[in-house]
């Protein structure tokens, strides 16, 4: 009962949150840049052209009217029309978003599947050679610029060895081509978030292993494997799950770099291109769309969190 209320509360907060994000984006991408018509017109365009553009974009209306129009139309599912593509923004976004989700999710899965065991091993064998090795790896993982890893990956696996294609999406992920295309960008993306997950799993596991209930479990005569898997891991994963949610956002940000480098037709590259081309409706739409996805993912993570931790207070 209380859990349902909590979920409802979380769902209800999404509406004002989206509204506030919209407001922020409106301020940032409509008010601050000033006269968008001047910005997107060719440098020496005659005043009449700019005037016509302004008319077409509805920029001559007072800001407050534009604001209300923007906010309400978004809730109707209308994100405006792209300057450049001359198409409704929402139409452009859908396919791109799916491509990005695919890339980010595969990356995240790699990071989780590899990261949690590595973190657990490091914690169990604390201060051993394994632990040192893993910790050093983590330190490099969080310090290396993503584009460096990616360029080196392209250089080695793509250009020198030629094992994998290094640009474009190769179709759906379940096809061989699709898999071959996604493997390098997803691995690169995973590597930066892997470090965070390993580090957190390790420290969280170390905390849990020093708890009294682990002692209780051992005192029952349970095998060490059972103690670790049944008693420790479930507790240790609670903070890790929260961080996975936040890391999703981190990956969604960094996927811009990945998509640009690997020429991946996702929403990150779209955002980047729309910024370069000053396609403000498209920028607004893409950023809002990414924010929405991130909000939803965080909500899902919170729900998983509820399942994991029976102690949770739903306030």
């Amino acid at each position, binding site marked *: 009962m209380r859990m349902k209320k909590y979920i409802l509360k979380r769902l209800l907060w999404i509406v*004002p*949150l989206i509204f*506030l*994000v919209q407001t*922020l*984006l409106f301020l*940032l*991408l409509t008010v*601050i*840049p000033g006269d968008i018509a001047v910005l997107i017109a060719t440098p020496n365009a005659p005043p009449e052209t700019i005037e016509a553009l302004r008319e077409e974009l509805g920029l001559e209306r007072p800001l407050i009217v534009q604001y209300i129009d923007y906010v309400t139309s978004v809730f109707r599912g209308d994100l405006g029309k792209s300057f450049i593509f001359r198409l409704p923004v929402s139409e452009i976004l859908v396919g791109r978003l799916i491509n990005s989700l695919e890339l980010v999710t595969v990356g995240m899965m790699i990071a989780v599947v590899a990261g949690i065991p590595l973190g657990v091993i490091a914690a169990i064998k604390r201060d051993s050679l394994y632990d040192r090795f893993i910790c050093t790896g983590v*330190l*490099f993982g*969080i*310090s*290396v*610029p*993503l*584009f*460096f890893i990616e*360029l*080196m990956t*392209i*250089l080695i696996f793509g*250009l020198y060895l030629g094992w994998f294609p290094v640009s474009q999406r190769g179709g759906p992920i379940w096809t061989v081509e699709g898999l071959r295309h996604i493997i390098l960008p997803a691995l690169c993306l995973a590597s930066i978030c892997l470090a965070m997950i390993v580090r*957190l799993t390790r*420290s*969280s596991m170390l905390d849990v292993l020093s708890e009294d209930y682990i002692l209780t479990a051992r005192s029952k005569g349970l095998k060490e494997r059972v103690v670790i898997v049944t008693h420790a891991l479930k507790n240790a994963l609670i*903070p890790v799950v929260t961080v996975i949610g936040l890391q999703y*956002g*981190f990956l*969604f*940000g*960094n996927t*811009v*770099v990945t998509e*640009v*480098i690997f020429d991946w037709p996702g929403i990150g590259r779209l*955002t*980047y291109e729309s*910024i*370069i081309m*000053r396609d403000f409706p498209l*920028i607004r739409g893409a*950023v809002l769309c*990414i*924010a929405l996805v*991130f*909000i939803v993912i*965080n909500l899902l993570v919170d729900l998983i969190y509820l399942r994991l931790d029976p102690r949770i207070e739903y306030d």
Partner: protein
Amino acid sequence: MQKREILDFFTKNRSMSVGISILLIYLIAAIFAPLLSPHDPYEQNLDVRLSGPSREYPFGTDQFGRCVFSRILYGARISITIGIAAVLFGLIIGSGLGIIAGYRGGLTDLVLMRLMDVLMSIPALILALAVVAALGRSIPNMILAIGINALPLFARLSRSSVLSIRTMEYIEASEAIGTNSFNIIRYHVFKNCFSPLLIFSTLHTASAILMAAALSFLGLGVPPPTAEWGLMTAEARVYLRQAPYLVIFPSMVILVLVLGFNLIGDRLRDMLDPKLRF
């Protein structure tokens, strides 16, 4: 501290000393760049385009024949400035808001933290891109774009430290004496928030530098021909096969600087506040 003690400290904290040495080297490079660099970082010499490392050009030359080593030295100024300034921005404004929210509680807390939620609900790099898209490319705008992302993090951290400090009995003891809120914050809260904020600032400087590099790499940071590491890497991308060193040198330089901050931050955390987790 005595000389002996300082020496002792550094021999016992190897990772910390490595980190500090890295920072010192970068600082020296940044401050004395004009003295240390063998060439003018912006001087083009098309005769020696894309030539590998040599005695004359320690890190080789780029597509315009500019000395990569000199450009890297000058680049240190930009990266360090952006990293530190962005974190200071987040630290001062963010932790200020966090302390107010945590100490006042109630509606103030609710409103401030919900606003921070809004900033948090856009992935960091995307928000930075949006800010740059709105304001245009320049160093101050980059600082702002990266600093805004740090705001909610610092606000949350300082708020939670304040909340945990507030429950401590020494705050209650101080209230029992009749000390007013202002003095309690000044004497007790600040002092005890300090170490988590210091640790987090150091670690976050590392991410700020990485983010600045990513922005520049995307061509949305500083405008060319500025000698900036991310931008240099981006420009070298086309020559990846011919001249991989053009990518490797500036990237490695970023890696080592970020590593330095992370080493210091990690060690600080172990020493001051082993329970903290970022």
